[in-house]
């Protein structure tokens, strides 16, 4: 056999399903989705090459996800684990999300077993290290973070078949982190940057979130929420989709309070609708 049907490989791994799901459920993030499609295509092709006996080194799959908070890094990592599992690059396809505290110990000799335990749990899946730059603390030369980094590097190099490591965090701080750990940077093949959402995208995200919880805006509320987004984006500690989730959470709280105070019979319609006053009561408008 000297031909292989790429669409057959795609069909049998059912990876299209995940990619379509990604397209449907994640608003915006066009460059991220494009990169994931590229990676998926690359992996399908290398699978096809392998089935024809064309030897090449197994692809390196470690990644870094950079972007502001709430731009969907964890969600995309989850989907990525699924894609890699379906393509046969991960045996189990689960995601283990950790931060510095899970990797770095508090006294001498504590770090290595701790890091190794996390690595063992992540085997067969994706190890997602959130705010990875905290691992490296140059201001303290006796910091144990360096030890964790070295163990991670070793595992990333020697156990490529067993796990995929994803580093995530703010763009600028990740860049500094990679600059001060050149060994790390060179072992990460895919750097994916998550852009901030545009106001229209945030609105679409909010609508998706409400829909999944069986709520909706009335017309007035939709206008109010548009204004809310514009104001919130300028306020400090803006965290993209996460801010939207929190805002909706509080709006639901206020809606419940309003209905409760009004008393009497409520229709299904009323229970589902979030009104403008629920949103305008937010402190962002003050």
């Amino acid at each position, binding site marked *: 056999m000297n031909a292989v049907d790429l669409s057959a490989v795609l069909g049998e791994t059912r990876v299209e399903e995940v990619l379509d799901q990604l397209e449907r459920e994640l608003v915006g993030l066009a460059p991220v989705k494009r990169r994931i499609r590229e990676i998926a295509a690359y992996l399908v092709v290398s699978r096809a090459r392998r089935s024809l006996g064309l030897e090449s080194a197994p692809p390196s799959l470690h990644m870094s996800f950079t972007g502001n908070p709430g731009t969907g890094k964890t969600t995309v990592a989850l989907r990525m684990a699924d894609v890699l599992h379906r393509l046969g690059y991960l045996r189990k396809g689960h995601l283990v999300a950790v931060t510095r505290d899970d990797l770095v110990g508090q006294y001498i000799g504590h770090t290595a077993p701790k890091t190794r335990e996390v690595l063992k749990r992540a085997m*067969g899946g994706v190890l997602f290290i959130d705010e990875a730059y905290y691992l490296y603390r140059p201001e303290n030369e006796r910091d144990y973070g360096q030890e964790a980094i070295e163990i991670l590097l070793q595992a990333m190099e020697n156990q490529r078949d067993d796990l995929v490591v994803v580093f995530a965090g703010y763009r600028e701080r990740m860049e500094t982190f990679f600059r001060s750990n050149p060994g790390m940077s060179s072992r990460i093949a895919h750097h994916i940057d998550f852009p901030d959402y545009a106001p229209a995208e945030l609105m679409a995200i909010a609508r998706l979130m409400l829909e999944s919880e069986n709520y909706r805006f009335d017309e007035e509320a939709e206008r109010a929420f548009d204004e809310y987004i514009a104001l919130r984006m300028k306020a400090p500690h803006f965290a993209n989709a996460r801010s939207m989730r929190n805002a909706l959470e509080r709006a639901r709280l206020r809606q419940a309070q309003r209905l409760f105070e009004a008393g009497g019979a409520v229709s299904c319609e009323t229970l589902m609708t979030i009104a403008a006053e629920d949103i305008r009561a937010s402190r962002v408008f003050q």
Partner: protein
Amino acid sequence: MRITQGTFSFLPDLSDDEIRAQIEYALGQGWSCSVEHTDDPHPRNVYWEMFGLPMFDLKDAAGVLGEVRRCRETFPGHYVKLNAFDATHGFESLRLSFIVHRPRDEARFGLVREEASGRTLRYTTYERRRS
């Protein structure tokens, strides 16, 4: 003298792939694996040393197998066994335990029969000097 004990005592030693398959099975059942080693394989010695802590919440055999390999490298002259613990109420004990490494120069045991009063026989297993 080939020492045997544990779940697969009647089989030849398992290869790494077979060990991996056993670990996969244990993890699939929700059991937690641990690695133990000893230089005293006397059948009555139930206190083997732990190699690291038991491993909880693992999804894949690679982690356990890596630990087995590390233990073999650290103690090439010891016996190493792999245990799988079932925490389910009512079991709360090992469900699987087998030797995954033995030293090249194995321990040798002898048996002494002691005649006691009447026709009673008492048995003692003792370790013979290694050649």
